[in-house]
C-alpha cells in the first residue's frame, strides 16, 4: 500500500484513492469524424508499461479530485504528482 501526495489534501494512504488508467489521453473533440480504427485507438489502446507511467488517480474517499501522477510500475515509486490540465513536471 503506497502513500500518495494528493495535490489538494497532502499525504494519504493508497486505500483512499482509485486509479483511473493512463493519463494524457483526451477525449476526441469530434468523435464522428474519426475512423473506426482511430476511435478504437482512443477507446481501447493503453500502454500498461513496466517502468515509468503517467497515470490518472482520484481521491475518492477525500476531496474527490482527479489528478495525475508519474509512477514507476516496477517499484511503485511515485516520481511526481500534478493537477489535471498541468504539464508533467518531469519528462
Amino acid at each position, binding site marked *: *500500500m*503506497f*502513500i500518495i501526495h494528493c495535490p489538494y489534501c497532502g499525504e494519504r494512504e493508497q486505500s483512499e484513492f*482509485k486509479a*483511473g488508467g493512463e493519463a494524457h489521453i*483526451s*477525449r476526441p473533440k*469530434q*468523435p*464522428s469524424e*474519426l475512423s*473506426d480504427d482511430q*476511435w*478504437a485507438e482512443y*477507446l481501447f489502446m493503453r500502454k500498461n508499461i513496466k517502468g515509468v507511467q503517467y497515470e*490518472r488517480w*482520484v481521491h*475518492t474517499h477525500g476531496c*474527490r*479530485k*482527479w489528478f495525475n501522477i508519474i509512477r514507476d510500475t516496477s*517499484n*511503485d*515509486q511515485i516520481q511526481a504528482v500534478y493537477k*489535471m*490540465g498541468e504539464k508533467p513536471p518531469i519528462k
Partner: protein
Amino acid sequence: MTKNLRVKTSKFIDETYKVSFKFNGKTYYGFKGDTLASALLANDIHLVARSFKYHRPRGIMTAGSEEPNAIVQLHKNTSRTEPNVRATEIEIYDGLEASSQNCWPSVNFDIGGINNFLSPVLPAGFYYKTFMWPASFWEKYEYFIRKSAGLGKSPSTPDPDIYEHRYIHCDVLIIGAGISGVMAAKVAAKNGFKTLLIEEKNYLGGETIYQDSEHFKINNQTSGSWLDKEINEIKKIKNLEIKTRTSVAAFHGYNFLLARENLTDHLPIEQRNGKTRQRLLKIRAKKVITATGSLERPLIFDNNDRPGILLSSAINKYASLFGVACGEKNILFTNNDSAYETAANLFKKGISIEAIIDNREEIDSKLIKESEKNNIKIYKGYTIVDTYGYKRINKISIMQLSKDGQKVVGSKILIPCDCLGISGGWTPSVHLFTQSGGKLKFRDNDQVFIPNTYPSDQISIGSCNGDFTLDEILSNISKTLKEFLGINKTGYENLEVQTSFNKSKRNIWLLPSDKIVGKTKSFVDFQNDATAKDIKLALREGFRSIEHVKRYTTTGMGTDQGKLGNMHALGIISEISGSKMGELGTTTFRPPYTPLTFGTIVGRNVGEYFDVYRKTPMHDWHVKNKAKFENVGQWKRAWYYPKNNESMHDAVQRESKAARDSAGILDASTLGKIDIQGTDASEFLNRVYTNAWSKLDIGKCRYGLMLNEDGMVYDDGVTTRLNENHYIMTTTTGGAATVLGKLEDYLQTEWPELDVYLTSVTDHYATISVCGPKSKKIISQVIPNLDLSDDNFPHMSFKDTKINEIKCRVMRISFTGEQSYEINVQANYGKSVWEKCMKAGKEFNITPYGTETMHLLRAEKGFIIVGQDTDATMTPIDLQMNWIVSKKKYDFIGKRSLYRSDTMRDDRKQLVGLLTENPDEILEEGAQIVANFNKSPVEMLGHVTSSYYSPNLKKSIALGFVRGGKNMMGQKLIIPMENKKINVTVADPVFLDKENKRLNA
C-alpha cells in the same frame, strides 16, 4: 515408561511450575517456559507427525517457526481447535491438548504409510499425471486422498475469541530482537526516534541470550550475560515500545507492514474469555531495520528425515534454553564450525556425543580443538550415506568423501545413535526483505543470498544480512546504524569481541551416496516430501525455471514455504543445469511469513459487522411487516412481503395483481439521487444521456439512458428539471456511486469549462412510490392541497409541495406502467409519510410490494432492468430502444461507438419477448435459447434474462436476448432444460398495455 531427559536447570524454565498437557490423548508434564516441542522432547518423544505424501514418520526438527514436521492440531473437536500449529512455537499451559495431523488412524500406525513403499510410483508430478486422467476416476481418488492426506481440521463452530486491528505509526521499526535488533533498538530510541521493536518469541535476545560459552565474549563477559544487561536497559527507555509474541507477517511497499500480536494463546483456556486473542498490527514506519536472523540449513543425504534428526542449532537451543537433551547418544553431522558450538554446550551440560561427522578434510579452530580435547571422535572428510530406524533413528552409516565431493569411497562405518544433529551452514532470513521488493545478490564464498538493493527506507542488519559471526555483527552494526539513522555516535564503537569461530565451510548441496541416485530418499522439502530425486526428474522432463520446478515437485509449497530446503533445491538445480546460483534467482516469498488465523485477518468485522449494510428510513416498517429482504449493492431492499406463510410465488402474484387492480406502494429510497446545478447543467445532461435535454421544461421529468464510451448501456433513470439551472437525477440502486464518479470524472478532466456542480443526495431523501388505478385517490388524501388533475399534474411532471409542514417533491413518474406518484421527503420523515400513505390507502387495498414484484411488473411492460436484463455488452439498439437515441445531437458519451462495424451488425443479440407454448410453464432465468438441435455443436442463440408468471395476463412471460432476435418475431425457438425441451415463440417485449393507457387511467 517415558524417560526424563531434563538435564540441567535452565534459568529460562520455571521448574517450580509444573504444567500438565495432553498429546495424542496421553497426559505429560512440562514446565512453565517450555514449548510443546521442548516438553515432548523432555519426555523423549520425537515421533509427532506423518509426512504429507509418503506418510513417513517424522519428528521435531527445529526449534522455531521454520519447523516443517511438528505441526499439530490443538484442542480437537472444540470451537477453539486450530490446525497446523507448530509445536516448536506454542508455549505450553495447563490443559493444553494437542494431536498429530496427517495420520489415520494414529501416528504410530498409519495406513497412508503404505505410500512409502509405493514411492517408486509416486514421483514428482504424480498428482498431475495420475489424477487428471481419466477424469471420471477423480471421484474415486478424491475420497482416499482427502481421507488419508490432509493438513488438519478446521473448526466447525463459531470462533469464540475476539480479534482486533490496530494502526501504529513509528519512526523506526525493528523486526527481530536478537543481539542486532536489541542493539539497534537501543541506539534508535536513545537518539530520540519513536521506536517499535517486534519479536516473535516471548523473550528477547534471540540465539545469543542463552550463549554462555567461553568462546564468544563481549567486553570480557559471555555474550549472553552482556546482552542480558543491554535488554534490561532498553526495557526502561520511554520512547521504545517492545512487542513480544508478535510476528511480522507481511512487509509491503512504502514501509507498510502487517504483524500479528498474540495475546492469549499461551494462557489456559479458562483464562482467555473476554480477552482479545490476537491483534493485527498495521504498521507504517518511517524507517525499518530488519534483524530477522538466519536459519540453519539441513544437509541432504539418504533418509535424512527420520525422527531423532534435528538441526544442530536446535539441539543446542533445547539443551541451553530449555535444559532438555534431545537424545542420550548424540551424533553431529556438519560442514562448518557451528556443530562444534553445539558440541561444546552439550558437553558442558553432560550430554554425551558419540561422534562428529565433518564433510571438511582439513579443519582447525579453537572450537574444534576443544571437541578433540573432550575426546569426541571426529570423522573428517566423511559423510553420512544412510540412516536406520523406522520411528526413531538408531544408527547411521558413514563413508569417506572423494576429493571432489562427488562420490563416496572406502568402506562403510556404522555408528549407533538415538539423535542426530545436522548443520549445513546458515541461510539469512530474507523473506520479509524480498516481500518489500528488495533485490538479493548471491555471495559465492559461503553460498548465500543477501540483501542488495532496498526499495524503501530500510536496512538489514546482523545475520539476515549475511553477518554470521559475533565479530562481524558487532564490527558492522555501529557504522551501519550511524549512516542509516544519520547520527554521530552509537555507543557501540569500542566493543571488545572474542570469538573462536572459523568460517570455513564445505558446501555440497546433495551429498553423494553409495546407492544409485534413483534408490535414495534425500529429502529437500520435508513437509511436502519432495526429494532430490524429484527435482532431478523435473529437470529431466524439461523444467528449467525455478518457479516451474517448485510447482511441479511442490518444493517450498507447504505451510513452512520451504524455509529449510529452498536453498538446496536451488543448489541442486544449479549443479545439474550448470547455471550459476545468482542467475537462477530465488522463488518468490509471499506473505504471510507464518500463517495467520482468519480471526486476525477479519478482526472485529464479524457477524453483523462483516459487511455493513444500508437501511432505508422505512426499514423498521418493512421488518415489522415481515418483509423478506434482498441485497442490492450495499442496501437491504424489501424483496416481498409474505402474508400468513405465503410462498414467495404466491406473495409476488398477490402483490403484482394488487398493484394493477387497485394500488401498490414501493420503497424506492435506495435509488441513487444526484443533485445537478449550474448554468451548464442542461448541456451536461445532453452530453451524458443518449436523448436530448435542452428542451425539457421546468417541472418536467424525462427518462434517460446512459452509455459507456464503448456504446454499451451503463445506467438509466428519470431526471427532473427543478429549475432553470437545477436538476435531480436518479440512478439505479447499485449504480449510484459509480455514476456519480463517472460524471465527476468527465466534468473535471474532459469538460472543466462546464459550470456544473454535483452532489450525492441519495441518503437525504426517502422515496415512496404509490402506483395503480387508485393511486390518485390515495395521494389526494395524503396531500389534499395538491391539484392532481391531469391538466395540472400530467404524467412525467413534478410538483414542489407540502404535507402539512413537511416539504416534499412529488413526481408523477412510473416504474410499472401504472399511474404512479413518487413522493420524496427529507429522510427522517420517510416512515411517517409511508404510514400516512398506508392509512389513506387502506380502503383501496394498498399493498406494499418489493423488488421481485417490481421486476415482474416491469417485465410485463418490457421495461429493462439495467444489470439484470443488460450485462455491459448491450447497446440501446440491441435493447430495441432506438427511440431514446438522439440522431440530432452532435455527440454524447458512447455515441461514436454505436456506429462501429461491430455494434451495427444485424445479428447481434437483441432483446425480445418470449412466450411459452404452455402458458403455465415458467422459464428459468439464465436458460439457453436454441433453434436447431440437428446441427452439432448446437448453436446457442442467446439466453433468458427475466421470467415470470404474470397474474395480470394469466400466462408466463419472459425477456431474453436472441441473436438477430429483432427480425424473428413469431418464430419458434427451443429452451433446452436438463430433462425436457420447452417450446417458445419470439414476441414483442411489451406484453401489457402497448398503448400506455394505464398511465392516465
